[in-house]
């Protein structure tokens, strides 16, 4: 289920300086959003498995970019979450 505030955070980070604020002052950024303690911790810990189910995929792709993942890194990290990774690889050829 998509989470309004999680997506709002990622949407807002698109603005100028977003990448730097997220890198340098993550806790201060997080203070502006009413996250549950679990989601806040997942964001601090870069716990993609807890973040992914609640994020719009296009916003998540952007978020992974500003977290330093290139496309290959995002494909690897997201693919690792898939319950049937083999099926995915078969599908991807």
């Amino acid at each position: 289920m998509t989470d309004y505030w999680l997506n709002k955070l990622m949407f807002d980070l698109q603005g100028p300086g977003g990448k730097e604020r997220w890198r340098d002052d993550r806790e201060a950024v997080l203070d502006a959003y009413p996250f549950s303690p679990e989601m806040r911790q997942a964001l601090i810990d870069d716990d993609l498995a807890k973040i992914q189910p609640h994020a719009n995929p296009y916003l998540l792709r952007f978020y992974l970019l500003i977290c330093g993942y290139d496309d290959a890194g995002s494909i690897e990290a997201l693919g690792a979450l898939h319950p049937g990774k083999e099926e995915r690889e078969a599908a991807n050829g």
Partner: protein
Amino acid sequence: MAEFVGSFAASHGPNIARNWEDLKSETRDWVVTRFGDLGNRLKAARPDVLVIHSTDHWVNFFLDAMPAFCVGIGAEHEGPPEPFMKPVYPHETLPGHESLGRHILEEAFAADFDPAYSMRLKLDHGMCVPIWQFGLDPALPIVPIFINLVEKPFPSPKRCLAWGRMVRRAIESYPEDIRVAVLGTGGLSHSIGETTMGWIDEPFDQACIELFRNAPDDRLASELDAMLENTGNGGAELRAWVISHAAAGSKGFDMVDYIPMPEALIGCGLAEWRA
């Protein structure tokens, strides 16, 4: 009365801009020649105005106000805000076509559609990658129309067929003697930010091409609807092609070219509908 002079579709992966300098030379050559070809066909139709359909990629709209359709009725719109677009398409603004935009909006309301409208839109890579690669610089006046294809629920393929037919009627009932072309951008298959990210679903793409070639509207709508359940999220953008298809009267589909393009993470295709 205005004249409908052609209908087109093209893919728009952001990496075509973001990684332009680093693409393999054969990929870049393919993009230059195929987008160039479609750009030349579009120019040959001599449109005065271009009606473009695309999804917005979290630039104009957020979950606090997510329109299904949004018609741009401004005299001016903003160029792409993404930093990676600035080097290749550094336009602060693009010209809109206020009165055609408003006419399409009013015809939409009269035909029982409920679009949002906007007097000033930001035109992201979705619209500007094809415009750039077509060599439309500066762009001709645009009526941008966004469809929500990023966070469900989306307008159904059936509804998009109806929208495309309505746009055609609106163009042909516009009282000025101008030439108007329709362009849909997006697709074909891709998967972005999902666990299947990077997946290019060639059988889906070939099936879509086959539907545009041969399927009557009701089969196109129902099969596409079913197929979209089982491909990557970017496939949703095929609805922009469906609108171009319906605007063309659902006939004359001519696939210019198609390749899976892993560097751009998309099945990359271009098409024209020949009257």
